[in-house]
């Protein structure tokens, strides 16, 4: 085979040839972890394609790859009774923006929808899968243009592969390579993977697992599971997921396998993993594992504990915590009993977190004048416009009568790092002249409430991290974190 490669776990392929995503699949397979079967159209095919046409022989190799997937999954592509659906993903050796995103459920048409409905007993799921495919395909492959879809699933697959190759030369991808000194010739691969079904029976389901708790950083796996469901159902918020214990009760073997996989993946990656998985008829399949997003305090805790566990060293721990995360942990907050017995004078949508007290002023010029005279002012406006920016800079916090989370006031306050509550209603204008405390979670309290301002050296976790940084001559934690200047 010249243009494609099957991922069978036997050998670890060259990352430059298969791209990062396929390489991580191959690596999971090499650990003996269960991953749905996949093959890759290599970066070499992409390079050949850039000469002007699909390389000769590539389509035949894709057909052979499909046959192999059919054998591995005992399902059939483009027809029933057990249809094979595919995910198609781009992936260069270096992860890169601007590339075509993933197309899921490729392989479904009217007949396949009917077959899926019969197989699962879930006609709604089959219809939904079909719709989701059409939506994704139209947005991603056809880029929202009103063009007809290729007729057969096979032609759709070939068109998706071409779309990935074309996206290699999107404006964003080209600029990114140019700015980062990445060779235009390295090309992207395309991973073609069998989809698994979490909704076939009661021993099927889907979920996410964090190798540690992403909110607290505690070294306890944290996950959510949804029985008889497809991957997107967990993310969509349409259903309330169950705790992992539900999975343990229904599919104990898959549960044990999952916890072992989580340990292994975290140890290998030396970072908290966010693992997407599906259980199909009692068997675990891993779909994706990546470093998990985490709350600021969790970032600090994990960095320290992983150092203590010997997974990373102190330098790495320090590098893993951003100044923004520190700023977040050290943000002033109301003391625990500060609002006891009080009723808010206004409530709205929290647009930027934090707390601040001051006297309410209703004009930006006045906010600037009194702010410069050293007063703590809270700017209250009906709405804000670029004309109000000087007042917003001078104010400790910002409150508006109208507008939502994407309003000008919300955007600018986040850029400035000022607590902000938007959409409080017209009554809020009457607060002018009074002293209030704004809590960016969405509440305005009467009076100046008691606050505490944590410092690095008071904070048991941050202090250790700061000491490691200082020992290495790194003052990053001792500089006043300037959120607005760094990232606006």
């Amino acid at each position: 085979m010249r243009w494609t490669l099957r991922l069978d776990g036997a050998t670890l392929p060259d990352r430059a040839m298969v791209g990062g995503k396929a390489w991580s699949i191959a690596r999971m397979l090499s650990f003996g972890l269960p991953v749905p079967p996949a093959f890759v159209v290599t970066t070499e095919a992409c390079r050949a394609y850039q000469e002007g046409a699909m390389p000769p022989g590539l389509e035949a190799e894709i057909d052979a790859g499909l046959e192999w997937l059919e054998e591995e999954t005992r399902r059939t592509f483009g027809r029933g009774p057990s249809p094979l659906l595919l995910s198609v993903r781009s992936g260069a050796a270096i992860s890169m923006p601007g590339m075509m995103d993933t197309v899921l459920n490729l392989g479904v048409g009217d007949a396949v929808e009917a077959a899926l409905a019969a197989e699962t007993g879930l006609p709604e799921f089959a219809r939904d899968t079909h719709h989701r495919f059409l939506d994704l395909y139209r947005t991603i492959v056809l880029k929202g243009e009103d063009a007809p879809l290729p007729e057969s699933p096979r032609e759709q697959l070939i068109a998706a592969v071409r779309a990935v190759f074309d996206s290699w030369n999107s404006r964003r991808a080209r600029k990114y390579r140019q700015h980062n000194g990445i060779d235009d010739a390295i090309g992207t691969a395309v991973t073609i993977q069998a989809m698994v079904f979490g909704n076939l029976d009661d021993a099927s389901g889907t979920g996410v697992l964090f190798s540690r708790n992403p909110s607290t950083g505690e070294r306890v796996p944290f996950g959510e599971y949804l029985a008889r469901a497809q991957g997107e159902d967990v993310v969509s918020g349409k259903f309330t997921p169950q705790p992992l214990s539900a999975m343990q009760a229904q599919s104990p073997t898959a549960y044990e396998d999952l916890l072992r996989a989580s340990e292994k993946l975290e140890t290998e990656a030396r970072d908290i993993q966010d693992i997407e998985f599906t259980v199909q008829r009692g068997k675990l399949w891993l779909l994706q594992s990546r470093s998990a997003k985490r709350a600021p305090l969790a970032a600090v805790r994990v960095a320290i504990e992983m150092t203590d566990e010997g997974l990373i060293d102190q330098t790495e721990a320090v590098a893993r915590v951003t100044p923004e995360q520190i700023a977040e942990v050290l943000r002033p907050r109301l003391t625990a009993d500060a609002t006891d017995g009080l009723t808010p004078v206004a409530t709205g949508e929290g647009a930027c977190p934090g707390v601040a007290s001051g006297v309410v002023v209703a004009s930006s010029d006045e906010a600037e004048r009194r702010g410069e005279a050293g007063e703590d002012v809270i700017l209250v406006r009906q709405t804000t416009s670029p004309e109000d920016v000087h007042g917003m800079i001078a104010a400790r916090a910002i409150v508006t009568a109208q507008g939502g989370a994407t309003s000008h006031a919300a955007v600018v306050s986040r850029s400035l790092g000022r607590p902000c509550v938007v959409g409080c209603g017209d009554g809020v204008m009457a607060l002018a002249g009074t002293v209030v405390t704004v809590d960016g979670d969405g509440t305005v309290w009467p009076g100046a409430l008691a606050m505490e301002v944590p410092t690095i050296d008071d904070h048991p976790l941050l202090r250790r991290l700061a000491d490691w940084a200082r020992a290495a001559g790194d003052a990053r934690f001792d500089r006043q974190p300037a959120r607005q200047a760094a990232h606006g």
Partner: protein
Amino acid sequence: MMDDRTLAFHGLAIKRHADAAAVAALTGQSIDTVTQELAAAVATGRAIEARGGYTLTPLARVALQANYALHFAAPRADDAFIQAYHGFERINPDLKQIITDWQTMEVRGERRTNDHSDAAYDDKVIDRLSTLHERAEPVLTGLSRGIPRLKIYADKLEAALDKAEGGDPAWVSDIHRDSYHTVWFELHEELLRIMGREREE
């Protein structure tokens, strides 16, 4: 066409508490012209100067606003310009959403400040900004066809996008520079004034 004085005042109205250079960069006038006009405005009580920044006095602001209908009679009656303006308003909610997604992110169903620790997330948002810019380009062209000096906004948006795409994230929404968001909102303010409309939020 606005005369130099009105144009300088108009620029100052959009960019409050700005120096002559910042106003000139917005209006496309020379710094000398703007410096002269603003100095004259201070002398006649139409503007005040504090720490190198100028601000129009309330009366001058009202007078400026009152004359917009006259100054902008042509674009307000120009179908192509009106269409471009509506095009801008159609894209505006998407821009606001993208900027919001840049500044905040969902972590387990909860909106939090984006701490920019997830490069893949940030890259995706900048991808969306690039795509939005491509959609905005014909609109921006339409606007500067009606009022040529508006081309400055298109140039500044492109420059900000370029820097953001090049890996300097401050050019997305930092309020202290001509970031994509800063320029976009100044353009929005400019268009509201040109069309004689009120901001909704």
